[in-house]
């Protein structure tokens, strides 16, 4: 697969919540190849401090305009947030494998489960899913009302949106896993009679993903998860971002096969593939 290092001008970089920003720029090369779940490796500084690029998922594609949604957590994202329209931006992408979102005709119902900034890649996924179906459910978890992201955007795509907040300031009082539980338990029997299958796509902090894993294991629902790791190269060369996965058939010959690279083999994995105790 072809990967590009493009240097573009920022179209817009605007604050969308207390600590999140949305940035857009145009790149035909990337836009016409990228799949939901793939990410970009972004240079945040022209100096050696900070030195490394930062991985950020693709949040939206509209024509050739690429959108990213990011949270300011440290120096790299801090510098990114200071850039303004017209400033240059240097990105490498598209990177990683992306979600496998081909639905089996009408018999699969997608549920998108995003915790915090984990919602970022799911919006682009929803954009693409609407081309196939109209039954998308989006579960958004946030610490409080002010930090809920993308709710209007998802509604505009006609998604069924449900919200949870840790402090109950909006939606249900609880976590996005509580929301998911509700989708799974009662519906499950209904769906079965209609011969429908849920398909879950999730991204968020590790503790949340671990709970999602427990839940979907219990109900045996097909789930894909987008993971994060500290990255250096982002392209599969440095072995910095490995993750332990379930035993690979080849692992007798080559035990390294049990370790995958989040940047290249991921960031999206089948939730069952990951050895969750090892994260």
């Amino acid at each position, binding site marked *: 697969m072809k990967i590009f290092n493009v240097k573009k001008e920022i179209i817009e970089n605007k604050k969308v919540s207390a600590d999140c920003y949305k940035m857009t720029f145009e790149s035909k090369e990337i836009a016409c190849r990228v799949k939901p779940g793939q990410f970009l490796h972004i240079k945040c500084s022209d100096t050696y401090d900070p030195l490394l690029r930062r991985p950020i998922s693709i949040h939206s594609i509209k024509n050739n305009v690429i959108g990213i949604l990011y949270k300011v957590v440290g120096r790299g994202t801090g510098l990114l947030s200071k850039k303004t329209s017209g400033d240059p931006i240097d990105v490498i992408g598209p990177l990683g494998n992306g979600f496998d979102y081909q639905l089996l005709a009408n018999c699969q119902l997608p549920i998108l489960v995003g915790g915090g900034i984990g919602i970022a890649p799911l919006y682009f996924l929803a954009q693409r899913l609407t081309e196939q179906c109209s039954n998308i459910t989006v579960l958004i978890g946030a610490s409080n009302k002010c930090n809920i992201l993308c709710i209007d955007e998802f509604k505009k795509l006609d998604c069924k949106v449900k919200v949870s907040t840790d402090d109950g300031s909006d939606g249900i009082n609880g976590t996005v896993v509580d929301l998911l539980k509700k989708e799974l338990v009662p519906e499950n029997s209904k769906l079965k009679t209609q011969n429908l299958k849920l398909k879950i796509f999730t991204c968020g902090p590790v503790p949340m993903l671990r709970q999602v894993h427990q839940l979907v294991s219990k109900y045996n629902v097909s789930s894909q998860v987008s993971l994060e790791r500290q990255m*250096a190269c982002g392209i599969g060369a*440095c072995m910095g971002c490995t993750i332990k996965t379930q035993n690979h058939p080849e692992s007798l010959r080559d035990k*390294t096969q049990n370790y995958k690279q989040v940047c290249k083999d991921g960031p999206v994995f089948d939730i069952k593939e990951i050895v969750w105790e090892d994260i």
Partner: protein
Amino acid sequence: MKHISLDINIAGIKMKNPVIAASGTFGYGLEYSQLIDINFFGAIVTKTITLEPRIGNPQPRIVEVASGMLNSIGLQNPGAKVFIEEKLPKLKGYGVPIIANISGSKEAEFVKLADLLKDMGLSGLELNISCPNVEHAGLFAQDADTTYKLVRKVRKVTSLPLIVKLTPNVTDITLIARASEDAGADAISLINTLIGMSIDIQTKMPKLANVIGGLSGPAVKPVALRMVYEVSKKVRIPVIGMGGIMTSEDSIEFLLAGASAVAIGTANFVNPNTCCEIIEGIKTYMKANSFNKISDITGKLK
């Protein structure tokens, strides 16, 4: 105007320019080929290969520090068999000399591996006797005698150009370089990473699961440059300089200090186009300074 040539011949390895991809930062060459034309390189050194597959160290393995990074990959690699059967055939399709970087925890492993790799169409072998990310009491390259013995044994089983890669974590690197030369090395690579550490003060735990890791990037450049300068005055075999090279200016500093070629590691992560830019930059510098060949620059420090 005279013709400017970037060709070099290091220890019998013919390269079209002196810019090499450093071990461990360029995988097996194939990953970056989706993004850049790897035919541009003077040579590619593979990620370290060991006899048996290694799963490496636990996560996290990478942490950024001021003007650099620490890594504790721990030589994760699929082992010699997979390298020979799967990686090498693809790599040989490129028009670039391939240097296999090998390591082991015992002398015998190096010897066996060198023997295994001798007729595989490789352009050279680099002995990584300086990786800080594996457990044994001290690195081979921290002791001149140990280095001498190891290189001597490997030398006996292979006629491939033999490059010995040294660690900067020593009192006097010239002693280790001399020992390598005496034992029959054809070239010296330096530096591998400096041993460092970083702590998360909130969790009170080391940021790397392996506690310590190897420091690379611009932060180490002054140390690397000094060592290249010291070593190149003390050995007759060529020195491949590396450590924090980000630009053609950095590369030229290493050449002036005495390096015959340079290797680029961490910079690939930051700017995958670094090597191409360096090649162009060296050319421009040669023109401006009326240098016709790389050896006109090597060691020309006033």
